[in-house]
């Protein structure tokens, strides 16, 4: 196992560098420039390119950039004068993480419950109701749901703040908006997997031995239903944490998602690179953890072996 983890760590660094290089070269082909403002003449654009080191040969820029990345130096934003990329990410990631964690928590709990209820009461009224709730959570477009929440709960009923990020009550509506999708996702996987597991022989055996029904579900069912859930939860968490533009925009949450899209649209290279690297680092780490968890959750899985062993 230790050997496996060590080699995986090695691969992670390799993948990370590959992504870093790929993003760098992709960005070279990104049309436009941070300084092609309507009012700038070519000569002035040239001076600005020089000021920010964009006039150097691409290969030169690339090695400089790789060197900087390796020591954790991500450069300075073009869009926000003088602000370093690490500061920009640092200022926003905390908010995104809190919001993401809340939405994930809420979605997991509700979705898990709905899924288990639906599976245990398979093909009953409860099953259908649970699934309709799950489907609705999935089928109403995110921004419509968020917009309706904002208008009804915020403007009409005035129960909760319309927007901004100044305390827990401000996070409730965005959390609900984000959690709807998570809840739906988890509920459906949970139901499907639970049905699978509940049909297996060892569950019947456990029943036959007279073990309490809910205890069987808890001890065997849920644990065995975890594989697809873990697979899906990992990246889902990252994408929730790194922010979702729509919800951030509607509730004016100062998270990372909107910043990222903006930086692409304004050709703010250092921010694009910085946020991309940060995202991919998170993703790679999560995938790694998920692979390790596979082994822990289901002892039957052997990661290192081939199919013929």
């Amino acid at each position: 196992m230790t050997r496996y983890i060590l080699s995986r760590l090695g691969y992670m660094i390799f993948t990370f560098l590959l992504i870093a290089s790929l993003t760098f070269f992709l960005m070279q082909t990104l049309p436009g420039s941070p300084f092609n403002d309507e009012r700038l003449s070519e000569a002035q654009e040239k001076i600005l390119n020089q000021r920010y080191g964009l006039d150097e040969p691409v290969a030169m820029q690339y090695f400089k950039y790789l060197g900087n990345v390796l020591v954790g130096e991500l450069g300075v934003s073009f869009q926000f004068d003088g602000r370093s990329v690490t500061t920009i990410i640092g200022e926003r990631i905390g908010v995104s993480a809190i919001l993401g964690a809340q939405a994930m928590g809420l979605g997991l709990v509700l979705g898990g419950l709905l899924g288990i209820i639906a599976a245990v009461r398979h093909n009953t009224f409860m099953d259908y109701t649970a699934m309709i709730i799950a489907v609705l959570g999935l089928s109403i477009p995110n921004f419509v749901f968020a917009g309706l929440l904002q208008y009804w709960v915020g403007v009409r009923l005035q129960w909760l703040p319309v927007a901004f990020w100044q305390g827990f009550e401000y996070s409730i509506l965005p959390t609900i908006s984000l959690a709807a999708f998570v809840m739906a996702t988890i509920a459906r996987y949970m139901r499907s997997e639970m049905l699978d597991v509940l049909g297996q022989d060892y569950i019947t055996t456990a029943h036959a031995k007279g073990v309490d029904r809910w205890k069987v579900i808890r001890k065997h069912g849920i644990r065995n239903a975890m594989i697809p859930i873990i697979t899906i939860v990992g990246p889902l968490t990252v994408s929730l944490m790194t922010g979702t533009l729509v919800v951030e925009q509607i509730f004016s949450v100062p998270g990372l998602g909107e910043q990222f899209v903006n930086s692409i649209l304004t050709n703010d290279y250092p921010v694009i690179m910085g946020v991309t690297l940060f995202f991919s680092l998170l993703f790679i780490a999560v995938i790694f953890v998920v692979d390790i968890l596979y082994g822990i959750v289901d002892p039957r899985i052997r990661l290192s072996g081939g199919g013929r062993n």
Partner: protein
Amino acid sequence: MNRKRWLMLLMLISLVSLLAACYGGGGSDSSGGSAESDESSEGSETGESEGGTLHMATPGELPTVQTNGNLDGLSQTVMLNIYEGLFRLDENNELSAGMAEDYEMTENEDGSVTYTFNIREDAEWSNGTPVTAHDFVYGWKRALDPETFSPHAYLMAPITNANEIQDPEHELYGQVDELGVEATDDKTLVVELNNNVPYFLELLANPVMFPQNEEFIASQGDDYGLEPENVISNGPFFLDTWTHDQGWVLSKNEDYWDSENVSLDAVDYRVAKDASTEVNLYETGDIDVANLTSEFVDMYAEDEAYTTNINTEVYFVRFNLQNEFLANDNIRKALDMSYDKAEAAESILKNGSIPAYFLVPEDFVSNEQGEGFREKHGNFNMTDIEEAQKLWEQGLEELGTDSITLELLSYDDDQRKAMAEYMKNQWENNLPGLTVAINQQPNKQKLDLEGKQDYDMSFSGWRNDISDPVEFLNVHLSDGPYNWQDFANEEYDELVKKAQTDFSDLDQRFADMQEAERILIEQETAISPIYQSANARLINPSVNNFVAHPDNTFSFKWVTMEE
């Protein structure tokens, strides 16, 4: 379905409140940053002071407070209110007093001009140091220095040697000490101009011409302008708090020379990223001013808080003359006259924008006799479908074809997207044989395509920095940096170049510019003007003297709040 959604909502809310216990720590943590801004706004709600707090919303983070930075409308607004140049624009967009107490102008024999400004004795930075002439010299040179080059340095053009210093090919490139500006003593600033540019004083109200304190900037190093403590102000307000990506507070600067005429205690800016969120926040009373997109105009047009404000910004279609079809005069003119601009402005934009049959905006400048720029020629190429169809037929015949496909490069926001769709539809309906494909691109990418002339027609716009028609006309100079259409007309070039440098007979200059505009639109139809833009907003009726300038920046100096 509705009841079920409510049920779900109730369930969710109760669960969230359960979860609140676990995440309470996180929640209060995140609110820590904005606690200060809450406190400062509380003062206003108790109504103790006469001033009060103006609550504003803005779609994004404040990009910069450095005068040599990349100035968008938001940064400019903040800088206009925390800094001050030699002059500032008042409620009527006229020059009013700033850092300069008085000035003197002398015309030299060679046509150049020398301005001498006396800076106010009581002008001070918020750290107590006086504002001196050296601060101006430093600030201007900083904007031209290649190391700290400002994207807006082109505004300095009238000053002697400014153009040469920002030309990498020229021997003076980067030699900022050659700039025609000098501090003869602490409070006297002498500026040399190549020509007697009539709008020079107005330029001085632009942030790129603001003073900068060398000592302070040097002491801050790389941190300069990043946080409130890294900024000093000389304007009516100072940057009090700044919670990044959430908001910032401008508080009244008691050291400001004219502070007795500043009524507001503070301006509380919050980042509200979505247009409908802004309206909702206005509805709940969280903000005092809300910008309205066209969609919301129908809802509020009758409201007493509803105002519109026309900008000196004109949108037009650029015709790329490299295209063989668009090189035909009749085709261009037919395109210009064949879509209903009035209906578009009234029914799609709705926000007070007016149809444009011109390039130099309505209500913009007048000559010495008070005659407006538009009065002489009025509108060019008024919409006339029948006439357009005749021209179109004629053009097709000359080209020997019966069908043309053209691409229309366009913006990607809702309002301008609807405009592009409307134009496409009108063109295709009114001009038989024409197919228009819309190519919608984000701004930077659109500019890139325009710069490379990789388009047929482009939906573009232009906004002035100073109140002079030449600002709009020099865009189309044959060798100008913004001519992305291959447009070239000798007479036009001659007239505009003369207007750029010869200020000896202002009436003649005015007439020349009117003629140039006629050539551009009526004679050549190099562009098809669409509309002059306006902004619709809701301003809380208890807010008085809210000043929105035609370039969509705001001044808060004169704002008063009723209780």
